[in-house]
C-alpha cells in the first residue's frame, strides 16, 4: 500500500474536520477525492506530507509512518512527493523558473544546465513556455496554478498530490492539465491523489473516486460504481441536487 490513512482524526479547536477518515491509495493509481467546500479535503491532503499531524490515527506513505518519522527522514520522504497547492503558493520573491527549479536544486544531483532544461520542459508541459522570467505577481490566476503544477512535477516525484489542479481554468486548459495528470500516471508511473470539485475531470483522471463527507469517507469506488451509486449524499453531490442530500441525511 503506497499511501494509507487509518482512522485519522483532526480538529482545530472546536472545529472537528476529520473524524475517523481512512483511505488506501494503490501503487500506480490515480485516486480522486471529492467533497464539498470546507469538508476537509485540503486538511486531509496535508496529512500525507506531514504538514499536519493527526490528533489520532496514523498515516503511512511509502512504507513509513509520517507522525513517527524523524525530521531528517521526513524531508527525504518529501523529495518523493510533489504537492500542488490549492492557491499555488509560489514563492513571490522568485521568478517562475526559480520557483520550478527549487526542488531540483535541493536535490543537489543536477547541474545548472540540467535544471534549466528540466524547468523549461516542465513549463512547456503546462503551457507556460516563455514565461520563465516572470514573477508570480505578473501571472494570472490560472497561470499561477499551472506554474504550481510545473513546480510539483519538476522533481519527477513518485507521488503527486494535487489540490484542485483545474479549479478556475478555462475548459481547454483544464483538458490540458487533465491530460498531463494522466500522462504523469501512465508514462512515469506516478501514484496520484487529486482533489477536485469538477466531475468531468474526476471521471477523466480517476482510476478510483472517493468522497469525503462529515469527516469520514462516504464513498470509494470506480467511476462506474460512482455513476450507479444509490447513496443519496453521494448522488446528490455528483449530480448537483441538494434535495437528494437532504433526504439522505
Amino acid at each position, binding site marked *: 500500500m503506497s499511501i494509507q490513512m487509518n482512522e485519522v482524526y483532526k480538529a482545530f479547536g472546536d472545529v472537528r474536520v476529520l473524524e475517523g477518515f481512512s483511505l488506501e491509495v494503490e501503487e500506480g493509481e490515480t485516486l480522486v477525492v471529492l467533497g464539498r467546500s470546507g469538508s476537509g479535503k485540503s486538511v486531509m491532503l496535508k496529512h500525507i506530507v*506531514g504538514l499536519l499531524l493527526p490528533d489520532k490515527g496514523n498515516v503511512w506513505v511509502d512504507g513509513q509512518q509520517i507522525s513517527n518519522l524523524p525530521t531528517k527522514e521526513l524531508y527525504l520522504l*518529501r523529495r518523493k512527493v510533489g504537492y500542488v*497547492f490549492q492557491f499555488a*503558493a509560489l514563492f513571490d520573491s522568485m521568478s517562475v523558473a526559480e520557483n520550478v527549479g527549487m*526542488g531540483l536544486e535541493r536535490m*543537489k544531483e543536477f547541474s545548472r544546465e540540467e535544471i534549466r532544461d528540466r524547468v523549461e520542459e516542465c513549463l512547456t508541459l503546462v503551457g507556460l513556455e516563455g514565461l520563465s522570467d516572470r514573477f508570480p505577481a505578473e501571472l494570472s490566476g490560472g497561470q499561477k496554478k499551472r506554474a504550481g503544477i510545473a513546480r510539483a512535477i519538476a522533481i519527477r516525484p513518485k507521488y503527486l498530490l494535487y489540490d484542485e489542479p483545474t479549479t478556475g481554468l478555462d475548459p481547454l486548459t483544464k483538458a490540458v492539465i487533465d491530460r498531463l495528470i494522466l500522462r504523469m500516471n501512465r508514462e512515469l508511473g506516478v501514484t496520484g491523489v487529486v482533489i477536485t470539485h469538477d466531475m468531468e475531470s474526476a471521471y477523466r483522471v480517476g482510476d478510483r473516486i472517493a468522497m469525503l463527507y462529515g469527516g469520514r469517507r462516504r464513498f470509494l469506488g470506480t467511476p462506474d460504481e460512482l455513476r450507479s451509486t444509490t447513496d443519496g449524499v453521494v448522488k446528490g453531490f455528483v449530480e448537483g441536487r441538494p434535495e437528494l442530500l437532504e433526504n439522505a441525511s
Partner: protein
Amino acid sequence: MTERILAPFSTIGRRAVALAAGIGRWGMLTAETFRSLRHVDVWGRLLLQQMAKIGLDSVPIAVFIAIFTGIVLSLQASYTFTGAVPLYFVGVLVGKTMMLELGPVLTGLALSGRVGANIAAEIGTMRVTEQIDALETMAYPPVAYLVLPRVLAGIIMFPVVTALAIAVGIGSGWLTALQLLDMSTPEFVRGLTLFFEPFDVTFAFIKATSFGFVVTTIGCLFGFHTRGGAEGVGTSTTQAVVVSSMSILVLDAFWAVTLL
C-alpha cells in the same frame, strides 16, 4: 460583584499567561534557529543577501538619525555647561552619549521599525499564502531557510550600522562645535579622548549585537505565527515593531545595570 472586582486581575492574569506563552514560543524558535546551523547548504547562500538587505539598506536611516543627534547633543551640551564647565566637555558628552547610549539605542529602534517590520511582514505573508508549507514540501527546513539567515545577518550587521552611526554622530557633533560653538578641533578631540575607555566600544558592540538578535528573532517569531490573511499580516507587523522596540529598551537598561 466579586466578578467585577476580580475582572482587572483576571485580565492581568490572562496577559501574563499570554506573555509567558510568547516567551516560550520565542525560546523554542531561538533554539530551533541554533539547531538549524547544521543546514549550511540551505542558509549559506542566503546570508549575503540578507546582510545587504538588513545592513546596507538601513545605512541611510541610521546616518540620518545620527547626524541630527550629533548636532543636538553638541548644542545642548554647550547650553548646559555655559560658563560653569570648560567648553571641551562638549566633546566628552557627545562622544560618551553617542557611544554608550544614543548610537546603539536610536539605531536599534530605527531598525526595529525597518527591519523588524519588514521581516514580520515578509514571513507573515509567506505563512498565510502557504509558501512556508511549500518550502516544507520541497524539503527546505523553513527555520534554516527563512529565520537563520536573517538572525545571523542581524547579529553581524547591527553592530556595523551602529558603529557607522556612532562615527557619523560624533562627526556631526564635532562639525557643529566648530561652526556654531567657536570650538577648535583640538579642544573637541581633547574632550572626546578625556574619559574614553576601550570598554565603551565593547559596551556599544554588546548592545548592538543583542539588539540585532532581538529585533530579527522577534520579527521572525511574529511572522511565523501569523494567521488570517492580510489583516493578520498587519497585526503581526505592528506587534513585531512594538515588542522589539520595548525589548530594546528593557535590554538597554539590563546592560546598564549588569555591565556598568
